[in-house]
């Protein structure tokens, strides 16, 4: 019995008087895609930030590949094989799109794997290609539309060839066509393989998303967060039927999904 790939143990985060995340525990296996859903302000983004180490948990521990990464600097965690995207996009605005993706290709994790100076640019290009924005490679990031910036976030995250991807609303601001495209790419990435010079080991994923209709088909498991607490953790169809989940969502989106599947 090996330890879980990602193990979040009783993590709590208090902002002033507010418990944004309250005693959350869950595990994630190497082969899984897990959805993390919950109403606005439930603490999903905060939970992701606690895992990546952007925030220090008030209490609790996070283990990744059996290493204790609680509150460890995010650059170290990224070099261990974790990657994340931000809900509010944070590109290097004045740099060209290509340079945005070259930065992660220059991290020690990517550099170890080969002759970096020459291949960095090519690898960055392949990451852009994968996300479908390679035609924008030379534009400064500041001219991109929100949807393209979201995809740039994803390209930046996969450029380090991670083993675990934490995605905060990857479909946010994308139109339906783009959403389907990105959902498909994620599925493809998870299967693993080579995308040009970019190698994918088929990363495990934890995806925070509000667009349940697009999320449900690609996830193996769903974790539901409400007021900082995990109220459900199971297969998509089980979770959708859960009383407490329906209550937390005031029945709205979950019912919509049921109607779709029928």
């Amino acid at each position, binding site marked *: 019995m090996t330890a879980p790939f990602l193990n979040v143990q009783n993590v709590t985060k208090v902002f002033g008087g507010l418990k944004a995340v309250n005693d959350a525990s869950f595990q994630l296996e190497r082969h899984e895609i897990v959805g993390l859903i919950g109403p606005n302000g439930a603490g999903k983004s905060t939970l992701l930030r606690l895992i*990546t180490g952007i925030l220090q948990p008030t209490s609790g521990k996070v283990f990744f590949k059996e290493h204790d990464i609680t509150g460890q600097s*995010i650059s170290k965690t990224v070099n261990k094989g974790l990657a994340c995207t931000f809900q509010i996009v*944070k590109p290097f605005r004045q740099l060209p799109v290509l340079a945005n993706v070259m*930065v992660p290709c*220059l991290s*020690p994790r990517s550099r170890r794997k080969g002759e970096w*100076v020459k291949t960095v640019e090519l690898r960055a290009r392949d990451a852009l290609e994968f996300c479908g924005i390679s035609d924008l490679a030379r534009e400064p990031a500041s*001219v991109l539309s929100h949807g393209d910036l979201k995809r740039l976030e994803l390209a930046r995250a996969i450029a*380090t060839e991670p083993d675990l991807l934490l995605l905060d609303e990857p479909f946010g601001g994308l139109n339906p066509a783009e959403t389907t495209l990105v959902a498909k790419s994620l599925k493809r990435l998870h299967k693993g393989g080579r995308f040009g010079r970019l190698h994918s080991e088929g990363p495990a994923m934890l995806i925070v998303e509000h667009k349940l209709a697009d999320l449900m088909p690609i996830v193996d498991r769903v974790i539901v967060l409400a007021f900082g607490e995990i109220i459900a953790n199971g297969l998509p169809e089980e979770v959708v039927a859960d009383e407490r989940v329906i209550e937390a969502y005031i029945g709205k989106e979950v019912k919509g999904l049921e109607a779709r599947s029928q």
Partner: protein
Amino acid sequence: MIYFNLFFGWIKQEIFAIPGRVIALVFFLLLIALPLVTQDPFYLRVFTLALIFAIFAASWDVLSGFTGQLNLGHALFFGVSAYTAGLLNIHLQYSPWVTIPCGAVIAVSVGLFAGIPALRLRGFYLGLVTLTFPLILLGILFAFPNFTGGELGVSGISRVSSSAVVNYYTAMVVFTVSVMIMWKFTDAKSKLLRTGIILHAIREDEITARASGINTTYYKFMAFALSGFFAGIAGGLYVHYMRIAGPQTLDLFFSFQAILWTIFGGIATIYGPVAGVFILYPLLEFLNLTAWGELLRQIIFAVLLIVALMFMPEGITVWILDKIEVKCPRCKVVNVFYRKKCRACRAPLHLVRESAHQYNKGEV
């Protein structure tokens, strides 16, 4: 013969086709030619100091312009090296070839020390802390007047050479090497070093840089060390040229001078601060020659800066390059402004000329 042709072809492609590089080449040739044209001590003095100040301003640009670590007390590095070199020279009679590197090494360690607040502070908060550093050092220096000369500083320091021309060329060689290193270190397009891209990234968004797996602490300290090193070199050269290491090397206004030169010339470019120094410094020195100029010096300087910031907010070099260079919309190769088609991919250029700048800035 074939090598000559290859070489000439390369020059044509890489220098003559790009207006900015032609200007840089002309500037460099003029620097070499200056002592051949005039050996007037006044001119040589003005341009020797301009060379030294250009290293100083460029080193500020590495740290604050590229890496985004606002340093309002940059004279600290200059002054600490100036005093180190001066004291070593006076008390131990070391030659400039020893004292200047020693000063630079001390400036590097001071730079690393000054980098500590940058781990927690950003922007103006960091600026305020760094602002106090030269003042602290001044306090320490004034506490030991017998050793440091107090308000008067240490004087009687030896020169690199007794010949003004040799001094000028020494400064020029050091300037050229320093600026080339700083330029390579910070150039995002460099194929040799990739530090440029990383420094830009840290300035743009440090969290994203860290989330990309970059150890930003390491690179920030590297920027502090390198910036300190070259400011230190400038400080060492300065004392061995002026023959005095005084409190003015740590002056608050001297720190601001680096910022003014850089912003006037063009921030985050390396050639910007060089241009800024070589335009503003000689201009003000020449104004000093005339009676009315001396009176109006401050006003002229202020007006010049205001006008420059209003009409050329990104600096004079960026403004000029924008006028004489066109970036191909398709392949982003730089072309001379009068070309109709891109020299690399033959895409028409006249369509983009008006809107290109705004587009590149993301205003449209």
